């Protein structure tokens, strides 16, 4: 499965190019609008062409990501996919209660993290050693909160609450909680 860091790089490049383009466009527009020019009546077909571009852009983004980001279809269909490992985790009083045995996953395995909260709304995220995020989900009390993830690289990950649950929530970190081995 493609690593989430690769997807983030793709997004960084795409959005940076877009941001630079729209800033350049507005700078150009701001300059040109103060200059003398021919009286210009924009044709309505230009307007409809622009709207068509927006529709294509808005819809195609989701089609492209659904077909290129592997965890998207896996997440939507996780009830029908058999996990290689299942980890039951509970959260209460700003503490993660992890399984008694260390969470070790082999490269290529699909692991299901099933997290339940006994009191507040929390978050559950796995983070790399450089603090970048592998994935996250919300942990809502009274509901099942499960995420299926396929690990394709060896590494050690920390767990961190990704949702605010009061000032104590900032300390909800379990270092080196998940290990992925060859």
């Amino acid at each position, binding site marked *: 499965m493609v690593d*989430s860091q690769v*997807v983030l790089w793709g*997004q*960084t490049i795409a*959005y940076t190019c877009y*941001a630079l383009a*729209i*800033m350049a466009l*507005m700078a150009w527009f*701001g300059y040109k*609008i*103060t*200059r003398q*020019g021919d009286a*210009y009546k*924009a044709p309505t077909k230009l*307007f409809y062409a*622009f709207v068509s571009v*927006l*529709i294509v*852009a*808005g819809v195609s*983004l*989701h089609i492209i*990501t*659904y077909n290129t*980001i592997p*965890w*998207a279809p896996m*997440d*939507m269909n996780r009830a029908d996919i058999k996990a290689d490992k299942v980890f039951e985790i509970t959260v209460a009083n700003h503490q993660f209660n992890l399984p008694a045995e260390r969470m070790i996953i082999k490269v290529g395995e699909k692991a299901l993290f099933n997290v339940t909260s006994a*009191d*507040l*709304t929390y*978050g559950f*995220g796995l983070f790399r050693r450089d*603090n*970048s*995020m592998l*994935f*996250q*989900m*919300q942990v*809502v*009390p*009274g*509901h*099942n*909160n499960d*995420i299926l993830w396929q690990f394709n690289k060896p590494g050690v990950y920390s767990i*961190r609450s*990704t*949702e*605010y*649950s*009061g*000032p*104590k*929530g*900032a300390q909800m970190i379990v270092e080196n909680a998940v290990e992925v081995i060859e």
Partner: protein
Amino acid sequence: MKFIETFLHGEEGLFKPKTLTPMQKLVLRFVVVSLVFYFFALFEGMLMRIMQVDPSLMPADQYFGMLTAHPLVGIFGSTYSLVFGAFLFLVPFLMKKPIWSFKLANWTWILIAAGTMIFWTAGFLTHYSPLYTLYWPLPADFTQFNPLGGAIFITGIAIIMVGTAFFVINIFATITYTPEGWEKQPSGKLIKSALGIDAFSNLFKKRDKQKEHLVSLPVAAVARGTVDVALNAGIILFTGVLILVYMVAYLMGYDLKHSAIDALLYKNWFWWGLDLIADGLVLIFVAGTWYLLAMLITGKQLFMQNIARAALLVELVVSWTVWSHHLMSDQAQPGILKILSGELVTAFELITQGLAFFITLVTLWSARPLKMTNPLKFLLGGLLGFGLAVPAGIMQADIGLNRILHNTQWIIGPHVHVAILVGLTMTLYSAVYILFPIVTNGAKLYSQKLANVHFWFHLIGGIGMGAFMGMAGLHGMLRRTLYYNGEFNLYMILAALSGTLMFIAFLAFFYNIVMSLGLNGVIQVFTPSKLDVKDTVPAAE
């Protein structure tokens, strides 16, 4: 001596408060309240930026108390004040009829200012900090928060919602009522025109299609956005009462069960209401303001104005069905809602807001050459802000990308802060600069150089702050938390420097306004006017 003279009486003494109508004074009161609370939000924002670099400077509970108050002060105390003030002035001004109730309008700013001060003080003193999201059961978690402080905090918000309800009543009553001595106004037709029901029913008529719009496009935008204001006030009031029930019960010795309320259902309900602001009234009001500004700046009709009018109605309907993009990381949320509401309806905002962007630019282009005035440059800044922030939002409202973006600094930086500080605020500044001579009866701006500083520092600071927050988010930095080991200090220092630019921009603007009106003038805005309350601007002699 000239400095003191200008400081006391304004630039060239041109601002004469005695010539102001009650409506002009009213809108200036809203502006003053808005600027004061903008300063609150800005100052708190800067303190939090510093805390992001060095969290040891302040206790964590105080930081999160500030994090709770910051967006509420910014949205309700500042933005609601400015927008409500402007619209309570503009609707009667554009419809050439007196406001329905001046008293109610006056109570609106008083209640918003009082409510904001109440919740801010309660939060400051008791550190009540469930954040604006109020995820259940956090607002009623009395192991963490003082129930009395919380009850006062929620009461402050409720008072603001009462002021908001007064605004809603006044706007719709002003559009539909018949002023004394006037020929009977067609109330039903006016409200249909304002809400777009007539244009919608035209689609299904073969004959007798209504060709004229009784209500102008900017007033229609105000009316449609006000529908979301009303719905949102209802949701927040209801939620506030629910939380208050738990607080009062606790104070009386009863501990109500949190599990009586389903946390996910509550989250859906509350986000449905909150999105009526973020993806509803803000976008509708902004689009309407762009159209009005484009028409005022160019003196021309709006390009594709019937489409623009229809799009405002589409935007209203979209705002009722878009909330689920906030719950894409909630695994118990039905997948169909994530796809339909979270992805597809949200993508509609790219279309509606892109359309407003395009129409405004083409309208401006049709009138070139234009002079690069303050309203025009701030309007372009506002357009750029949404041009940057809306696509950033569409990207995060995606099932795949949300998994690695949700609750990171990406959300709050390139999307939220760029949308609010660059998109919304610069649009509002454009409106302030264009309305300035109208509501002050021709007062002169003290310094154009300061206006330029205001523009460039705000634009660069706003985009810079959003960009550095976004970079931190893409590297895994979460929002709504603190990092104690300097993990993201480089980005946070750069974001703080960008924030400093915005702080300087505001000081330049505030100083410029005070020097333009004079301290005496600002104070006299709060004294009653002796002119006729029915006149929006002074009657021609």
